[in-house]
Structures are given as C-alpha cells and as structure tokens.
C-alpha cells in the first residue's frame, strides 16, 4: 500500500554567515494511513525543522516529499494551496499559535473561509461541532485566546487543524508547553480524534515516554539524521542504536526496585554547522571505534520493522 506521506532523502540547509547549518540531512521517513509516527530527539536535532519542511513552512533544500503520491517538495505556493487541506499542524506553544485578536469561533472558522468551504451557516455549524469534538463549551466561541488556560488553547488549535478534514497532522511538541496535569487529557483527545477521523500523525516530541504512548512507530533523530526506526514497543524493549539506548535509559521508571543501567552521554549535541565526520554520534558514543570516526553508517534493516544506523549490533560493541 502506498504510504500517505513519504519523505525521501530530504535535506533542509540554512546558509549562515560562516557556512551551512544542516538542520535536516538526508532524512527518509514514511507515515502510513491512520498511523502515528513518533519523532524523538534532543532540542536542536532538526525534528521541528523536518515537521515544518513537510508542511512547506520552511523550504526544503533537496529531496522529495510525497503526499498521497503527489510530489510537493518543489511545488509553488499557489499549487500547494489546495493540498493544504490534506495536512495541518498543531503547534508547540498554544499561546503563540493563536492570533490574540481573533475570537475562538473566528479562529476555527477561518480555514474554511480561506478554502471556500460551505456557506456561512454551514461553517458556523461546523465550528460548533468541532468545538464539541475537542471538548470546549459552546459559550467559549465569542471569547479570545488569552481568556483560556494552556490546555484549552491547545484544544482551539486542534479544532482549527481539524477544520479542513486533513488526513495528516504534524503535531510539533503539542503537549510540551502544557502543565503535566493537562497533558494526558490533550493526548487522549488526540488519540480519540485519530480513531474517529482515521488521522495520521507525525508526532514530534523530545519526551520519549509521550511518544512511546501514542506512536505505532518511532523514529529517533540525531543531529539532522534518523538513527533508528522501529515499532513503538520493540524500540522500547530492544533499542539497538547506542543513542536510543541512552535516551531510553534516561526515562525514569516508576519502580523503586528497578535496577538502573543508566547510559549517560558525555558532552553536548555537536553543532549542525560542522557535524562530526563519520558517524555523527561518535563524539558522544561510548562504543566508538576508528571505523565510526571515518565512515558514516547508513540506516540498515535489522528485522522486518526495525532499522538503525550503526556499524555494530549491540553484541558487537565494546565500551572504550
């Protein structure tokens, strides 16, 4: 079956004064119909840039983005406009992603106005229906974003993203800015909506436990590259790449008797301006060898649903 979204060898480079920031470098990724793909990585690894490039909010430098088979990476903005109904975005900061001068009803209605969908009455009905779907009271429609809490604002953003009946929604850290107490509510809402509307999500987060909870498949990103992809549960149980292992070992386990085998990474994320030669992770990898310093490993298939980019399988590695 053809995937809904297929990204192939995508590059997003930003020229800066002293060179080129390779925010996304040769990333390939697929999102199937009604599938949730989680994308995890540290701040600055390029995951948000990848999400924005898929929606063409930043311009891809090279590579291909196919949405339901249509190549959109180099499509003009005018041609792209009708396709935007198929893909929407939920932003990290619900405060910044809503126009402070628009009422809730106007925010949710506007996508339909822009795409000439329905009459005024039909749109108003749809707004009321969407507000009910995301769990907002109908009397909120005439109020402004600042009158709501973070969780409620994120519900407004979700309703706006749903207004065009998209197939794919890129969720860029949708709960990171929210209080822990409302995170679960918003995540459950996203999952309910996914089931009801058969949505596909590209779920971007630095929080592995959130991603693990919502995703069918997870891709781990490091410094502009994907280093491992697997089914959610198998990645969790059997991480293969040393970076993934370190990430998972950093997630607290709610069990006081659990034996901690914490892999602590040394140093910071290197600059994407001058990524390390060879394997980009070798500067922080406890198992790095001469081969890692010289040659860059490609993503390779370990089993049917598990791919990773390391020269060595776990039992072939030795701590330095």
């Amino acid at each position, binding site marked *: 079956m053809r995937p809904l979204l297929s990204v192939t060898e995508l590059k997003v480079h930003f020229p800066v004064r002293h060179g080129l920031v390779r925010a996304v470098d040769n990333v390939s990724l697929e999102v199937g119909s009604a599938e949730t793909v989680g994308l995890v990585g540290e701040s600055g690894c390029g995951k948000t840039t990848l999400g924005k490039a898929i929606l063409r909010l930043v311009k891809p430098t090279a590579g291909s983005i196919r949405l339901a088979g249509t190549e959109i990476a180099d499509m003009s903005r005018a041609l792209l406009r009708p396709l935007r109904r198929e*893909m929407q975005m939920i*932003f990290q900061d619900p405060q910044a*992603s*809503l*126009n402070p001068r628009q009422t809730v009803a106007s925010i949710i209605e506007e996508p339909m106005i822009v*795409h000439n969908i329905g009459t005024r009455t039909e749109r108003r009905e749809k707004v009321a229906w969407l507000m009910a779907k995301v769990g907002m009271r109908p009397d909120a429609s005439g109020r402004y974003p600042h009158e709501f809490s973070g969780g409620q604002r994120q519900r407004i953003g979700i309703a706006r993203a749903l207004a065009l009946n998209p197939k794919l929604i890129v969720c860029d850290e949708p709960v990171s800015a929210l209080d822990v107490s409302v995170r679960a509510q918003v995540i459950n809402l996203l999952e309910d909506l996914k089931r009801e509307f058969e949505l596909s999500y590209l779920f971007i987060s630095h929080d592995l436990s959130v991603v693990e909870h919502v995703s069918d498949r997870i891709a781990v990103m490091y410094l502009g590259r994907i280093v491992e992809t697997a089914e959610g549960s198998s990645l969790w149980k059997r991480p293969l790449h040393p970076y993934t292992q370190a990430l998972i070992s950093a997630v607290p386990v709610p069990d006081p008797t659990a034996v901690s085998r914490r892999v602590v990474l040394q140093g910071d994320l290197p600059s994407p301006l001058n990524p390390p030669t060879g394997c980009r992770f070798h500067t922080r990898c406890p198992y790095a060898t001469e081969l890692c310093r010289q040659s860059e490993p490609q993503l390779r298939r370990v089993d049917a649903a598990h791919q990773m980019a390391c020269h060595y399988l776990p039992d072939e590695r030795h701590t330095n």
Partner: protein
Amino acid sequence: MQGLKEFLRRFVRNWPAVGGFALLMIVLVMALAAPALYPGSPWDLVAQPFLWPGADAQFRLGSDMMGRDLGAGLFHGARVSLLIGFVATLVAVLAGIAIGALAGYYGGWVDDVLMRLTEMFQTIPPFIFAIVLVAIFQPTVATIVLAIGAVSWPAVARLVRGEVMALRNREFVQACIAIGMNDARIIFRHILPNTLAPVIVTGSLMVATAILTEAGLAFLGLGDPNVMSWGTIIGAGRDVLRTAWYVTAIPGVAILLTVLGINLVGEGLNDALNPRLRQK
C-alpha cells in the same frame, strides 16, 4: 469590544491624557465654529491696526498691523492647523504602513530596496526637505500636506517593519501559512491589526510634529496664500514683535497648547495600549 472598554477605562484614569484631550477638543470646537463666529475672511481688513486685545469689544483679541481681526485668524487658523496636521499624518501613516509591511513581510531584496529608500529620505533633515518640496511645487494646502507626509513616513515605515518582522515568525502566522492563506490576507487580517497599538501612538505624536512643521512653513512665507494659518500670523507679527508682541503671542500660545494637548493624548494612548510598560 471588551478590549475597547478596558482601553477607555485606563485612558480616562490618566488625568494628563484627559486634559490633553480636552485641549484638543477646544481647538476642534474653535475650528468647527470659525465660519459661524467669523463669517468673513480672516484676511479682511476690518478694524483699525494695532488694536490691543481687550481694547475694542468687537475685536476682543485685537488686530494686527493691517487691521485684520486676530480672533478670526486664530479660529480659522485652527481649521488649517488641524486639517493639515491630521491629513498629513494620515498620508504618512498609510505610506509608512504599506512600505514597512512589504519590507518586513517579504524581507530579502524587497526589504533591502525599501529600506535604502527609507534611509535616503531619513538622511535629509525633515524641515529643510519640506521647505524644498513646498518651494518646488506651488504652496497649496495639498502640496503642504504631501510635503509633510513625505518627510514623516520613514519613522512609521521603520516601526511597522520591525513589528511585522517580529510577528512574521510567530507561530500564529505560521499557522496561517499552513492553512493556505494568501499573503494579503495574512498581512491585512493577521499581522497589521497586531501592529496597530504602536502605530496609533506614533501617529498621534506625529500630528503634533506636522502642525509645527506647517506653522514653520507658513512662518517662512511658504504657507498656502489663500488660507490663514497660525504660522502666517506669527510670520507677519515678527516685524512688530517689540511694539505689538501680542500678534505673535496669541497664535504662538495656540500652537503651544494644541501641540501639548496632542502629546498628552499620545502619551495617554501609549500608557493605555501598553499597560505593561507603564507598570515598570
């Protein structure tokens, strides 16, 4: 609407702003009442020359060296000052918004070209530039308005450009792009309304500058010869400053109070529209 009520509440609590508003209203009433109170032309020679204020009950504010009624000049001058002040500011604000919004939104070479143009206008001292423009074209109300507008828009353009650049990268504008809005809708419906507060404040203060510039031009004899402006009266009174200082002082005080009123209103708008700044 809630925002408007809140804004009015904050503005009314600010007594200097209310005082400034009252001054401005007095000048406005003078301007509106001028044709009724002084139906004749303010240029008409109606009284004996050098009538001191209060000397003649018919001409309470006295007359100048030609026997023109200073009261008529003051009231009709209010019309000219307010009209030119507000219309010139409107021209400058509209031009500044258009240029600033384009430069800030599109960036790149559009920004480079428009900002170099803006800098070109800014390098010339504004008053000298206005004199040159009015001297080249015939001094009429329209050319004076355009000249003042031409020297005042760069400040607005810079302000709007900065605001638009900051807003352009905000997530709600990214959301607009993701929705598929065209640039015009994004700029007019989403970006510009959010730049309005600082533009209103700057614009209100620019009215004061425009009134001063107009008075300066008229003082130098570059006013529209068909209208009586406060600057014109001061320019004429300059020759008799030592013997009949009231000819200069009366319109001078009028300019002072008008400009003061506008500045107080502008400050009040600033405080009411940016409440967070005020608390600092």
